[in-house]
């Protein structure tokens, strides 16, 4: 079967939450059969690249095999966070949909 390249948004959902200058984004496949593809392809490095323009300094990926979910913790990505960010979205809530713009091969 030919490999198919799709947007993460087609096969997974995500939610962003902030604490200080740190953002976490969960990434959850709709269908468990796509879990291995996420595990293999959506690495901490790839997510770091995705938020490099915002000055992210470190990305930690946590794997929740029981729930089939990934949790990315992205440091210093909020340009000051709720405290001092000049961004219209100081909490960074919209960034889950930037993550979902990444491509994945299924």
């Amino acid at each position, binding site marked *: 079967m030919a490999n198919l390249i799709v947007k993460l948004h087609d096969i997974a959902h995500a*939610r962003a939450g902030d*604490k200080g*200058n740190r953002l976490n984004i969960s990434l*959850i496949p709709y269908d468990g059969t796509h879990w291995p593809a996420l595990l293999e392809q959506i690495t901490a490095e790839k997510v770091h690249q995705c938020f490099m323009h*915002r000055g992210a300094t470190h990305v930690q990926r946590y794997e929740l*095999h*029981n729930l089939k979910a990934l949790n990315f913790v992205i440091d210093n990505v909020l340009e000051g966070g709720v*405290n001092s960010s000049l961004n219209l979205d100081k909490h960074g809530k919209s960034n889950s949909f930037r993550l979902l713009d990444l491509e994945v091969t299924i």
Partner: protein
Amino acid sequence: MAESILIGCGAGFSGDRVDAAQAIVKTLISRQKKSVLIFEMLAERTLALGQLAKNQNAQLGYEPLLEDILTPILKDCVAHHIPIVSNFGAANPSGAARLIQKLAKEQDIHHLKIAVIEGDDILNKINLSELQIWEGDLELSISADDPIAANVYIGAESIAQALTQGAQIVVTGRVADPALTVGPVVEHFDWGWQDWDKIAAATMAGHLLECGSQVTGGYFADPGYKDVPDLANVGFPIAEIFEDGRVIISKADNTGGLVSIQTVKEQLLYEIHDPANYYTPDVILDITQVALTETGHNQVELTGAKGKPRPDTLKATVSFMGSWFGEGEISYAGQNAGNRAKLAANVLKERADKLDARFDYRLDLIGAVSVLDSNKADLLASMPLNQLTDVRVRMAVNGADKKNVERLMNEVNALYCCGPAGGGGVRTSVKSSVRTVSYLVPRSLISTHFHFIQEN
């Protein structure tokens, strides 16, 4: 049927819907089980805003919407023995309790037992320079100014004690959000405070409830991908916690929204960093072994929460007066709007850089790229502008001197006459901001207690 307790949540932040709790209360009454109603209303800086309000008027400093929230449901809760537990006391729990007393009198409710929890406020009581800064805030510059508020996230023990002694309302200031749930649950089952897996289960339930509708279809809908029925009437959540630590999440009857494996997974991970080590004052929660099962329509069961002994330090949020924050916007629409908007942004940049003053600013083209971009507009640089027909230029400014910030807002306003063709709809605002830093406080320095407010 194992013995259980229902915890309904009527608010997930300060400013949440004031009519959400009525459907929750109706549902709790109809289910005819031991029930408690909670409201979570304190974000990181809400308490600082309360402290500023209290500085102006010593009677204030509690949740501004308190009266609107309680008036429709107080009588039913009292009549049906549903205690109310909330951090709506903010910077002035005693003031909130006095207002509730007044509301009760107006509704002919007598001898209401209102408990006030104290011990979270450490302003002027602990020397900040002796405390460690929380790891996520290490890169923040620390203000030399006096803090305007300093509060520790305290645990659930005083809430449980107050309920044991018959409190019908428990008013707190800063507590850990899940503690609003953990207190009533531990009190109900008479669990030990070292029964870590049980405390973990209650904490997980509290974590799922604490943002209100975020577990019942709020902050979730994505049309065509994640559809939510009747979002305009999204129902708020109810957690049923069982003696064995099982948790079932559902929502108020006859409301919109959705409880599904997906909504619960998203909220379970919301604002979680290491899922094996979620620090709260009452337990370190591990959700890595949690299993979810859909047990009915809009009903999800969670099992497998694990707990580790509670940490020796508590987190404190300390707030300082921040800088002045200005925002100004102007719209360009129709033919060549993108390029006219870009020209307007360039004009603002040139005018700002000419000023001999210290401030930070940022320019966005809303409709091209804004919230996902960086302060340096890296994404905008590669964005084609020719096809755009409705773009709003936004300038945001942070500065210590209000005059400078106002001056830049004047520059946005001046684009009416001095900017590109067809610019309209200028709005500007200048506000003071509050900034917060999180510290770690040794538990041994904190003691919490409660007292009942006496009837006048």
